[in-house]
């Protein structure tokens, strides 16, 4: 067990704790010595979810075994440290896939459950938690317990999207979706602003396997860009059993200063706009379409050690026009250089602290610094006024008061957590910042 400084992906949140990576199940037989704990998966979250001040992080990466697979029912049982990349390779050979896959394949199943993450078509496929049939949770005071929507449903609900605060997820049984093919036809439709993107996405909704937009907010506040709609096709390259990709690693070299400024970001965005515009319709492999971050492993490190901040909200559809206009005004006023900006369609009832809701999701990313923090603070106010909800798992600076205002069940989450674990053994920098 070594003491170390942890950083969230993007360097937005940091804390000093320790890391231990057990590899045998007997580790969970005996309660470990006193002190706060937290499970870690890929430790690639944008926020300090897998670590905390004085917290002992239990890295679960070595618990990455496939325990059961039912090809008829379409379910797989895996240990929590199994990555989506490993699962993709295994399931593809059997004609199945995980329904919800976020853009980076190094993330683990345990992390996806604890974060209740979404993929590239939330409107159709829901969030990761919707596909979890059963999971095994470990808590030093309770031992190993099996949870499902039928067995201890309250604790199950608290654990899905519970940021690891209920205990360590050991394994889970996931419902799968049939793999329709190995390739994707990705169509790029140019759009002039955020509002047009929302309209185009609604029109394109039917039959799309992937649906999201990309915007250039670096050149001007309108947000010119593209709506990408993708359809899975049968033909595509062979899927390797073990795909190799660059892992996000916050200990790797990042330049001491950011190479991402107003000019470089505008140039990169313009270049991307030109390339994507020319292509129109592209055939890509399913792997590349699912995990676009794999193609640009160095991109996020160009922000340097100061890193970047991301903010994602779901805007209720009726308010989207007003939101886009007021966001544009804020962007013009604050003169912050922007990196990625993207939109998706969202739906589904919101519970506890899960990032869900009906409307349009917008994510923006900018270099970390006082200007961006000022702008994001102003956006917090805008979010609250227009009934938007920010994604807790994306914004490393999101203040506790914003969460308290935007999540009506925040106090209930806290009360239920307190009842489940009065000693509050599981803690993180994220939980501390949000007062959970």
């Amino acid at each position, binding site marked *: *067990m*070594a003491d*170390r400084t942890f950083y969230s992906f993007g360097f937005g949140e940091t804390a000093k704790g320790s890391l231990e*990576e*057990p*590899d*045998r*199940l*007997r580790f969970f037989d005996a309660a470990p010595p006193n002190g706060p704990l937290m499970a870690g998966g890929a430790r690639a979250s944008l926020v300090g979810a897998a670590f905390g001040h004085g917290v002992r992080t239990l890295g679960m990466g*070595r618990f990455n*075994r*496939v*325990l*059961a*697979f039912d090809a008829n029912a379409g379910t797989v049982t895996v*240990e929590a440290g199994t990555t989506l990349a490993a699962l993709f390779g*295994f399931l593809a050979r059997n004609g199945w896939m995980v329904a919800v896959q976020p853009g980076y394949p190094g993330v683990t199943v345990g992390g996806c459950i604890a974060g209740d993450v979404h993929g590239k078509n939330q409107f159709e496929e829901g969030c990761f938690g919707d596909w979890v049939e059963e999971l095994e949770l470990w808590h030093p005071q309770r031992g190993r317990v099996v949870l499902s929507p039928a067995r201890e449903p309250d604790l199950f609900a608290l654990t899905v999207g519970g940021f690891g605060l209920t205990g360590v997820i050991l394994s889970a049984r996931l419902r799968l979706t049939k793999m329709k093919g190995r390739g994707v036809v990705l169509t790029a439709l140019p759009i002039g602003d955020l509002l047009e993107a929302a309209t185009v996405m609604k029109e394109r909704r039917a039959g799309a396997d992937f649906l999201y937009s990309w915007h250039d907010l670096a050149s001007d506040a309108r947000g010119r860009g593209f709506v990408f709609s993708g359809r899975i096709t049968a033909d595509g390259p062979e899927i390797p*059993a073990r795909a190799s990709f660059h892992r996000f690693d916050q*200990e790797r070299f990042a330049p001491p200063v950011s190479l991402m400024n107003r000019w470089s970001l505008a140039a990169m965005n313009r270049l991307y706009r030109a390339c994507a515009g020319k292509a129109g319709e592209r055939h890509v492999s399913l792997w590349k379409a699912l995990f676009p971050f794999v193609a640009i492993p160095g991109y996020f490190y160009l922000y340097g050690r100061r890193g970047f901040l991301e903010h994602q909200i779901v805007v209720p559809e009726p308010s989207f026009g007003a939101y886009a206009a007021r966001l544009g005004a804020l962007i013009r006023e604050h003169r912050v250089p922007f990196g990625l900006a993207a939109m998706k369609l969202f739906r589904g009832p919101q519970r506890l602290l899960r990032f869900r809701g009906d409307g349009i999701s917008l994510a923006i990313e900018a270099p970390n610094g006082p200007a961006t923090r000022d702008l994001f603070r102003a956006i917090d106010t805008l979010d609250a006024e227009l009934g938007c909800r920010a994604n807790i798992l994306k914004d490393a600076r999101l203040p506790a008061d914003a969460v308290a205002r935007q999540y009506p069940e925040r106090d209930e989450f806290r009360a239920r957590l307190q009842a489940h674990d009065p000693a509050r053994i599981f803690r993180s920098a994220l939980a501390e910042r949000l007062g959970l």
Partner: protein
Amino acid sequence: MNMAIVGASAGLGRAIAEELAQRGHRLLLVARDARDLEAVGRDLRLRYGATIATLAADLRDLDIERFRAAVFKNMETVDGLFLVAGAGDDDDRGPLPAARAAALMQLNFNAPIAIANAFCDHLAARPKAHLVGIGSVASVRGRGRNMIYGASKRGLEFYFEALRHRLQGTGCKVQFYRLGFMATTMFKGRPGILVAGPEQVARRIVRGLDGRAGDFTLPALWKPIALLLRLLPYSIFRRLDV
């Protein structure tokens, strides 16, 4: 081929099992905890369609006759034996309580030798067989850390050299690997250039089955380091904080 891996539930042993399963060998996985073995066994069956048997046995309390019988109950012949299990002790830097000192010697020296001894005639009689032992760069030079561990591994290395000599001319190839730092639970430091992944080391060992008998240092980066440590006069070595 029928391959038995002792210490197959985690770290290097599990990685070797995965490499062998991928190549279509029939495996017997041996480790202390049946639950870990069950998980590794299921994983290798599902992902590689491999034929896997498991045997829970605690090397700290080894009854070699019963062990030998249990192995042959699972496999009629053994064509490959990988003795990977081992353990260190953080306090192995001075006098240890007798029981812990004995446990270190048992796990790293007595048990692997007892097992190799029990199977070497069987392996020698096979048309083609492998015996693989695992050592450590910690045994290259005696120092005030990993004292009993290093001494046990040095002794094991000696025994493997003797076995190689004894079994030459038979179908059994004896190989011994001195390993550098590996990212397993035994390694408490930070990752760095000198720390290899067990998967990477396992791949080299399994590929090496087609190579020559002998002893080897892995990863290769450790070869010059081990050589330098060995050649260093004691008057200089004693001043080093290694």
